[in-house]
């Protein structure tokens, strides 16, 4: 039972990160109908920027802020400079360009920082508190939950309570109708990419210190887990991405804990295949969101 509790909390902590990353994928999918395969590489690039600032100043939090702001800027730049000019007549075009971005970003990062794993700093201890002799949560886990929870709450408020959020949703559902209403559709798209990249950066900041460390490919495996989470929840569903992230985190934790860490990546891929075969629209995509503007 102790082991089960530990694995559950560990899985939820990891799942929260996958949820954030899946949310980033969903944000871009809803806005542009593109699965941004470059999300992981973009996140790593901003975490490297934060790492450089932390190393130069000694301040983890300054590096943290730089990484998040860097995500906003990088996301906006990728949309404005690259994705806006992609011919979207075939969905494959965006995917191919995103994969090209992965190669470019990872190559450039390798040239600048080398291809060795660098130790990524954390702001909080990862030693778990013991409750009744059972190791449950660490300060770092609480930081992860709080960060991801804050992002989910802020994004929910943005999309449901603000005119900008309403315009972003309108632009995603029916760009031409939105234009007629004065919505700057291009600007909303840029904002969507910027927010998604910033959320991706947060996920990178949270997960990289818990894995092998900072490396140009550090988010590749995380991307697969988060993509599975997004597909599980339904690529159109932000709440589905969050729940999908938590489910994938728990699955990985239980499989790693009971069957061995080497089996875990296979479990994620099996889950992905099962979802794609059984319910390709995901568990939380409703009919009304599939039918876009009439």
């Amino acid at each position, binding site marked *: 039972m102790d082991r089960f509790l530990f694995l559950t909390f560990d899985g939820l902590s990891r799942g929260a990160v996958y949820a954030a990353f899946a949310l980033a994928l969903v944000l871009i999918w809803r806005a542009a109908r593109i699965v941004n395969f470059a999300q992981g590489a973009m996140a790593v690039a901003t975490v490297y920027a934060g790492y450089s600032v932390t190393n130069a100043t000694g301040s983890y939090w300054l590096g943290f802020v730089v990484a998040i702001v860097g995500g906003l800027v990088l996301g906006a730049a990728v949309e404005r400079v690259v994705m806006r000019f992609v011919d979207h007549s075939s969905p494959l075009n965006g995917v191919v360009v995103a994969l090209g971005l992965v190669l470019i970003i990872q190559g450039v990062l390798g040239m600048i920082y080398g291809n060795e794993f660098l130790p990524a700093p954390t702001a909080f201890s990862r030693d778990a508190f013991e409750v009744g002799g059972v190791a449950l949560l660490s300060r770092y886990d609480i930081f992860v939950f709080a960060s991801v929870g804050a992002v989910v709450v802020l994004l929910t408020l943005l999309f449901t309570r603000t*005119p900008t959020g*309403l*315009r972003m*949703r*309108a632009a*995603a*559902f*029916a760009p*031409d*109708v*939105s*234009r*007629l*209403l*004065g*919505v*700057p*559709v291009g600007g909303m798209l840029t904002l969507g990419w910027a927010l998604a990249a910033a959320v991706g950066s947060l996920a990178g900041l949270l997960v990289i210190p818990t894995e092998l460390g900072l490396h140009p490919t550090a988010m590749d495996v995380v991307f697969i887990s988060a993509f599975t989470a997004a597909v599980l929840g339904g690529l159109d569903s932000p709440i589905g991405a969050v729940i999908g992230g938590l489910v994938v985190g728990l699955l990985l934790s239980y499989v790693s804990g009971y069957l061995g860490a080497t089996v875990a990546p296979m479990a994620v891929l099996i889950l992905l295949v099962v979802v794609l075969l059984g319910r390709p629209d995901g568990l939380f995509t409703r*009919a*009304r*969101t599939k*039918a*876009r*503007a*009439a």
Partner: protein
Amino acid sequence: MSTPDQGLALHHLTVRFGGLLALDDVSLRVTPGRVVGIIGPNGAGKTTLFNVVCGFVGAQAGSMTLDGRPFRARPHHLVRHGIARTLQGVGQFNGLSVLENVLAGVRSGRKPEQQAAAALERCGIAEHARQMPATLPYAVRKRVELARALVSKPRILMLDEPAGGLDTDEIRWLETLIREADTTVMLVEHHMDLVMSVCDEILVLDFGKPIAFGPPDTIRNDPKVTDAYLGAAA
């Protein structure tokens, strides 16, 4: 009292899609406060004309002015110019509630929710505010689109086949709405009773070319119009 320059004026607009001449030297003055109908057979260029005004389609020749000043049509600037347009069909955000659909059309001012609620009330669909458009009957969805256009308090309201798919009672309601809209209206419509009853002036297009312009009585009795369109539509 409006001066001759006021309102929207289209000067010699020509649009080609490849070898197809969609608009052929079309001119039209839309005077403030008037209801101007644009009729013609399918493919006559009515919606293309709307698309040029909205900036969805560029004209190869001709120009437009708004209140005497050159008017460069761009879709996301239309609202700024006080122009609202509905689309054929229902053109809605199916992922947004009815209230959110109308809120998206609020241009400015305080208390946008109150503005949206007033527009819904005006269109008689306040009770559907929290529902999703896809769950509603077609006629209600058409009213949602009208509410969204009206909420911006446009000076020019462009209605593209608003009576399509509506029954007699709904069309009667629409007729009252247009009469009481208290704004300039451009109306593309096939429902001749509605057009003849609400329009002050009517432009008739045939294969992109204007063949007649004038008040309903003149248009109704014009043999060119009867030959090209009304004979078939009647």
